[in-house]
């Protein structure tokens, strides 16, 4: 193993940035797991929906083709984040209603949830692949945000979008932390994740809490989806698949159900897979990432920080 020294610093930055994106997506996996003990494998489609809807809104309907600056950029940026977050949250809400709630009513077996989740994910992906939607190829994301170099650390370029990703991800995590510890809905989520019967006996409406959990996870996934589309400059029908399964790995690595674990797992996974690209070879990146998943599941199934939603 011989690492290309020149690439270490830039790769470290890339890994860190991707790690924050994984963390944002992982929050959804981890929160839903916390309250339902269910891996929502359709969360990747929830993530993609945010980016794809903003692609439609600004690229297709409003036809924005010029890079913007100043106030109009800030407004458009904020609008795209809000639209993306709401679109993903809406899709998560719909997913819960259509795919999972009927199973809960019938007290479906654990395996039914898993199959339904995978089915829902495929449904959304192949819906986006239809020619009347995105079609099979990559579609260019509206370039209103001119991705460019912001500054250099240790000889590696940091783009303006990278700064945006880190700042927003941290802001989201702080907001979530406050939501869980300070609000009534947040406390209900925490209670339900710790003991379902006790939560019910406290007067918590489990269905409402589950809906809230899906929606909150969806908001963060939507923000991640928009940022991802801006950073890489495209949307594609299956854009959720790889980041989704990486974020799931990150959630397991940090401790599924654990919010801080999602951040830790995201960053660690981003760093591990990207450093492996430099030291082992780029073609090994995904192999390394999923080997991490397998190793965690064998050696420490509860992840680094353990299970349980905490503030």
């Amino acid at each position: 193993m011989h690492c290309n020294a020149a690439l270490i610093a830039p790769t470290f930055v890339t890994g860190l940035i991707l790690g924050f994106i994984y963390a944002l997506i992982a929050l959804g996996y981890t929160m839903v797991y916390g309250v339902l003990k269910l891996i929502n494998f359709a969360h990747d489609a929830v993530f993609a929906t945010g980016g794809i809807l903003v692609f439609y809104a600004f690229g297709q309907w409003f036809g924005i083709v010029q890079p913007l600056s100043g106030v109009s950029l800030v407004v458009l940026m904020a609008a795209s984040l809000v639209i993306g977050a709401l679109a993903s949250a809406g899709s998560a809400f719909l997913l819960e209603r259509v795919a999972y709630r009927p199973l809960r009513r019938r007290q479906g077996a654990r395996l039914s949830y898993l199959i339904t989740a995978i089915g829902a994910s495929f449904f959304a992906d192949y819906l986006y692949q239809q020619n009347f939607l995105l079609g099979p190829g990559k579609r260019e994301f509206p370039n209103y945000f001119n991705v460019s170099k912001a500054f250099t650390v240790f000889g590696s370029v940091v783009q303006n979008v990278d700064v945006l990703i880190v700042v927003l991800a941290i802001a989201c995590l702080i907001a979530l932390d406050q939501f869980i510890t300070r609000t009534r809905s947040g406390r209900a989520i925490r209670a339900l994740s710790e003991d379902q019967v006790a939560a019910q006996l406290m007067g918590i409406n489990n269905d409402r809490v589950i809906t809230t959990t899906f929606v909150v996870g969806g908001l963060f996934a939507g923000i991640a989806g928009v940022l991802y589309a801006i950073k890489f400059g495209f949307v594609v029908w299956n854009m959720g698949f790889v980041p989704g399964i990486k974020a799931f790995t990150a959630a397991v690595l940090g401790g599924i159900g654990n919010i801080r674990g999602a951040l830790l797992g995201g960053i660690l996974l981003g760093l591990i897979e990207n450093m492996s690209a430099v030291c082992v070879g780029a073609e090994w990146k995904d192999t390394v990432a999923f080997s991490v998943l397998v190793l965690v599941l064998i050696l420490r199934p509860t992840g680094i920080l353990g299970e349980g939603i905490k503030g």
Partner: protein
Amino acid sequence: MSEPLLVLDDVHVHYGVIEAVRGIDLTVGRGEIVTLIGGNGAGKTTTLRAISRIHGPSAGSIRFEGSELTRLRSDQVVDLGIIQVPEGRHIFPSMTVAENLEMGAFSRRRVARRRLAEDLEEVYGLFPVLAERRKQLGGTLSGGEQQMLAMGRALMAKPRLLMLDEPSMGLAPQIVQRVFEVITRINQAGTPILLIEQNAQMALNAAHRGYVIESGAIVLEDEARALLDDDQVRKAYLGEE
């Protein structure tokens, strides 16, 4: 005469095809401690779960001050003031004692912080050990402390009917004694109680009236004192020959 506070009328509960409770009639009046005693698997917990709308009932009527509970969700039952301390306590393990108690007040919307603080102090007054451990995690408490926490958490909801499922289970005799003292005090302060117990002696000593349940059906009901003297009860539940 108006109807008692809680009325169970021909209540049946099924788990799949198995009928665990088979047509129970039971009432709790204002100010009463009523106990439901019986062996393991007789249907005691199932009855409480039906009242709280955690599971069932599959047939029959449960009324609380004229509201038909069988049409409500579990959270709406709690909103009416029917608060259950479940078997096994179900403490939130990674919340502190104080956080557990605050969760108890979840059903009281928009309660002022100061009121909440006063109610907390009241619970700490009733259970001084909880005050000492207020910052400790619920999962690290002993069985007796957890039982007290579960009862304190229920009191934070300002119950209009308190239902206790096996509060003595797995506790040392002197702790059981303490738990029953508190049950009596809560009742004397005006809260009606439905108490489920395998420890028939303790339960009947504390209660005004009692029901004996066997295989999902009520086989005896009477004043608690009369049940303590009943030959059948003495043989089956008080371990006497």
